[in-house]
Structure formats: C-alpha cells, structure tokens
C-alpha cells in the first residue's frame, strides 16, 4: 500500500482544480471544500496510523528504483507535520467564508488554498532535493495568489517585496542544488546523505550546506533574513495570514531540520555552532520587533520570528532532547500560530481597528474570544501545562546538557518578553470599562469562534496529553539522529 503516500498531495490538488471550475457558485464550493478538507484530514490520520504501525512508507513513482526515480517518503516526522497542516487547513476552510467577502472568495480563493496545502504537504513528503524546490515553488505560487487576493494598495506594495525575495532565494536554491549535484552526483536525499558520509563532508560540502541553509533561512525568517516577513504577513486577509504564519516558515524550518540532521551533520563544530548564535539573535530581534508596535496583527507576525529562533536552537544543539524539543515546538507552533492569526484577525474585524491604543474592554462583548486569546497567548509564551512549555523545557534541557548557558538564558528571557507582548494585547484590548456605545456583533463573533476553538483544543491537547504525543516525538528524534535508518528505508540495501 505504498501508494498511500501520494494521497495527501493528490486530494487537495484535484480539489483545487475542480473548485476552479465553479468559482462563482459559492455555496457549492464552500460545502465541497469543507468536505474535501475533512476527508483529507481523515486520510492523513489513517496514513499516520499506518506509518506508526508498520514504519515509513516509501513510494517510488513510476516504478523507478530509489536513487534513479523520484521518491516520496512518508516517515513519522513528515506525516506528523502533514497531519498538523491538515488540521490547520480544516480550521481555515471553515473560517474563510466568515472573514472573506463573497467577491474575494469567488476569485479562486479555494483553488489557491488547496494548491497551498498541496505544496506544503509535498514539501514535507518528498525525498528528493529538487522536488523540494518544485514543491516550494508550488506553495509559493499559491501564496503569491493569496497575498494579492483583493488587490488593495498595501497588498500590492508588500506582495511585490515578498515575491521578489522568494524568487531570489528560489534561484539560489536551484544554483545550490546544481552545485551539490556536480559534487555528489545525485539529488536523492538518502543517496546525498550516503555520499556526504563517505566523503566525511570535506571542504566544498560544508560550503554547500551553509548555502543551502541560507536558502531555507530566508524562507524560515532566521536573523538577519527576517525583515520581509512581518509586513507581508499582515496585509492579506486574516485567514490567509493564518495559513502563512502557520505553514510557510515552518516548511523552511522542516527543510533545515531534515538536511542538517540527515545530510550535513559531520562538521557540527562549524555549522551547528553558527546556527546557535543565529538562533539566539533571531529570538532577541524577533521579540524586540513584537514589543515595538501597537498593531496587534504586527505583534503576532513578529512573534513568528522568536519561535523560529527556538526551533533553530534545537537543531543547533543537536542532542536527542533538543531535536525532540524542536519537533515538538514545530507542531505546537504551527497550531498556535494558526489560532493566534485567526484570533487577531477576528479581534481586528470585531473591534474595527488593529491599533491597540483604540481598543478597550472587549471582554464584556466577546468573552469567549477573549479567553481563547488568553489561552493561546500563554500557550505561545510557554506557561505550563500548555504545549509551548513542553517544547521549551526540552529545548532548555538540551541547552543545559551541552553547557550553552548563554543561549538558554536568552531563550528564557525571550519567553518572558513574548508573554509580555501578548499579555499587553489582552490587558489593553480586553480589560477596561464596558463601552456602552459599542454595539457587538454576536452572530459574526460566533462564526469566528468555532474554527479558533478547534485549533485551541489541539493546542491544549498537545500540552495536557503530552504523554500520548511524546513517545512518537522521541522516536522521531532518534531516527533523525541516526540517518542510516532513513537511508536504509529509502534505498533498501
């Protein structure tokens, strides 16, 4: 049943194409998209269960044996991230009709949405560096479509920068892949790993590794390549921001995690030490950005950056605990960022402004949204027993194992500042006197609540139900630190 591995890519792709033909029949399209998103979630959960029971699924497309043909590898890490992607997709597809105007929806929103999911799932599942580039392009093309949806003045301005930057880093990606091809003579990740191991990653291979890191770092918004992110993430519609914030940077982080645990792990003193300092700077600069503004959307967008720093820190420390921490944090952050972007979108729509200084006493009108926001904020900051805490404690433990006290202290300080930046929204926006002149729109608020509650539920489950999730994550961390497992499962020697 190795064909299962292609379903998470095929289903949204087909759905996207079908939806494109009925773009004006909104009720049909909405219903269809919701059903497909739910079916897709069930399918990936089934695949996840299958992988958990029987080990990773390797699909050799067209029957070509592994190093020659294209492969899809659904190992535990990949499928776990695909499941998380689909959870976010379900929440967003139910949120979309509430937050988008009919006109925007009929301009192929659902097509772009499904193509984005296709690209993200494909990037997680592929076992081939060039196909990683292709799926990056698939998801970027869809994101270009989504970011300009509506065609407002700001959107056009910011999307221009977003497109240019991503285009440049994609071209760098192709160049680096061709470099790597000329040195090791293959683009299949497992075989690249094998050949790099044989050569013990001498000279040029480390250079290629660092170049590849810069490509992924641009997509993942690592310091100093994060300046493009905050503004371009807040200009589109809230539901699009949520998709971007939850998925796009995480694909970059996943690629770094994959390449620097399986392929380029022989020169840890050079590469991973370098990442450690970048991680520390990413955390600090990101959180300073979040503290610098009064725009609630911008605060959440800036909070993506320290999260990236945390995950990079886990990769840099390179112990089993810290890698487990990265994987845990990755999944936690995808869900909680999705929830937070939907929440600030909802708050900005309900309050009529995204400027924090003009908000007051929203808790009286919208108690449920207020408390959901509170839970999501403290989850993000890492207060026990929520999911952010478990990811962070694993990362800090990894840091202490390696005696990297400075980074651990920076990490803890950053967590505190994240808490401060998020609670600031809660205090200024939700606390305060009840505004009698303000007429709340309960019906709209109720529509917003369900998809957000769905995501917050998963986020709480990751924290409270950590005992059920953690063994899987530990297994993933072990397999990432032992690349021979991955190589053997793909090349079947």
């Amino acid at each position: 049943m190795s064909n299962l591995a292609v379903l998470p890519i095929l289903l949204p792709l087909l759905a996207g194409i079908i939806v494109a033909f009925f773009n004006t029949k909104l009720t049909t399209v909405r219903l269809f998209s919701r059903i497909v998103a739910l079916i897709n979630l069930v399918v990936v959960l089934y695949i996840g269960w299958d992988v958990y029971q029987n080990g990773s699924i390797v699909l050799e497309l067209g029957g070509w044996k592994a190093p020659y043909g294209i492969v899809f590898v659904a190992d535990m890490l990949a499928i776990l991230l695909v499941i998380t992607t689909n959870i976010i997709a379900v929440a967003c597809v139910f949120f979309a009709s509430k937050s988008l105007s009919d006109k925007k929806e009929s301009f192929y929103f659902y097509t772009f949405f499904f193509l984005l999911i296709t690209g993200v799932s494909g990037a997680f599942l592929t076992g081939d560096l060039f196909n990683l580039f292709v799926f990056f392009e698939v998801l970027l093309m869809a994101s270009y479509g989504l970011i300009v949806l509506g065609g407002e003045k700001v959107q056009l301005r910011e999307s221009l920068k977003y497109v240019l930057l991503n285009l440049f880093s994609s071209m760098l990606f192709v160049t680096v892949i061709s470099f790597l091809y000329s040195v090791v003579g293959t683009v299949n990740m497992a075989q690249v790993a094998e050949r790099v191991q044989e050569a013990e990653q001498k000279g040029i291979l480390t250079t290629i590794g660092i170049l590849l890191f810069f490509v992924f770092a641009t997509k993942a918004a690592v310091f100093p390549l994060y300046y493009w992110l905050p503004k371009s993430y807040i200009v589109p519609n809230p539901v699009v921001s949520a998709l971007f914030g939850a998925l796009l940077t995480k694909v970059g982080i996943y690629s770094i995690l994959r390449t620097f645990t399986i392929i380029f792990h022989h020169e840890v003193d050079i590469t991973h030490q370098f990442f450690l300092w970048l991680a520390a700077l990413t955390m600090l600069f990101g959180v300073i950005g979040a503290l610098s503004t009064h725009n609630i959307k911008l605060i959440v967008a800036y909070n993506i950056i320290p999260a990236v720093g945390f995950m990079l820190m886990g990769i840099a420390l390179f112990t089993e605990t810290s890698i487990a921490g990265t994987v845990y944090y990755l999944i936690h952050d995808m869900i909680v960022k999705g929830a937070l972007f939907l929440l600030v979108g909802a708050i900005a729509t309900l309050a009529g402004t995204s400027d924090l200084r003009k908000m007051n006493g929203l808790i009286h009108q919208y108690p449920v949204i207020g408390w959901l926001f509170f839970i999501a904020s403290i989850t993000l900051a890492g207060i026990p027993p929520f999911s952010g805490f478990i990811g962070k404690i694993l990362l800090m433990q990894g840091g202490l194992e390696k005696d990297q006290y400075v980074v651990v202290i920076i990490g803890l300080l950053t967590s505190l500042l994240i808490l401060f930046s998020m609670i600031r929204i809660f205090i200024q926006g939700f606390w305060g006197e009840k505004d009698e002149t303000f007429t709340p729109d309960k019906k709209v608020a109720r529509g917003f609540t369900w998809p957000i509650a769905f995501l917050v539920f998963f986020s709480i489950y990751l924290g409270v139900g950590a005992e059920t999730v953690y063994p899987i994550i530990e297994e993933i961390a072990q397999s990432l630190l032992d690349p021979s497992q991955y190589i053997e499962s793909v090349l079947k020697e």
Partner: protein
Amino acid sequence: MEIITSLLAGILFATGIYNLLQKQLLRIVIGTALISHGAHLFILTMGKLKRGKPPIIVEGVENYVDPLPQALILTSIVISFGVTSFLLVLAYRAAQTNETDNMDELRGNENE
C-alpha cells in the same frame, strides 16, 4: 567550454543583481529574469557539457550526456517563466494602483 559558460553565468548573475538593486520596478523584474537565466546556465554547466552524444541510452552506446540536469533545467525554466509573467502583471498593477514605480516610494508606514 565549461569555463566560458561559467563565466557567462557569472556575468548574468552580476547584471541581474545590479538590476535587482535599482529603484525602478521594471528593471528589478528584468534583474530577476536575468538571475534565473544565470541559474539555468549554471545547472547545465554543472552536468558537464562536452560529451558529444545525446542523453539517450541505447545498447552499445557508452558516451552520453547526463539527462538529469536537462530535466532539472526544463522544470526550472517553466517555473521561472510562470513567476516572471506573474511578476510583470503584479508590477504593472502595483505601479498603477500606487501611482509610482519607484521602490523608495513603495515603502509605506505602520498602522495603516
């Protein structure tokens, strides 16, 4: 032969980046197109150019060009073609809506 094409790729990268750093939108778009051409040429060079025979394996033929870089370029060309055309349309709309094609004036300010 590889040296010459590498140099050409380098020149394309250099002119591309020079154009990318300009203020006028159209020049930036041309810059990205040049960079992507440089990248494609680079892939071709990395797969070794002069082996003299087409990328076909028939029995008895020992001398053939590596087909993989060519397949990669083909995919990459299609992608960069699509992105460039999208970028042209986007640049046109952005210049029209914002009434300027100067990147300095497209910076914007906070809280709008």
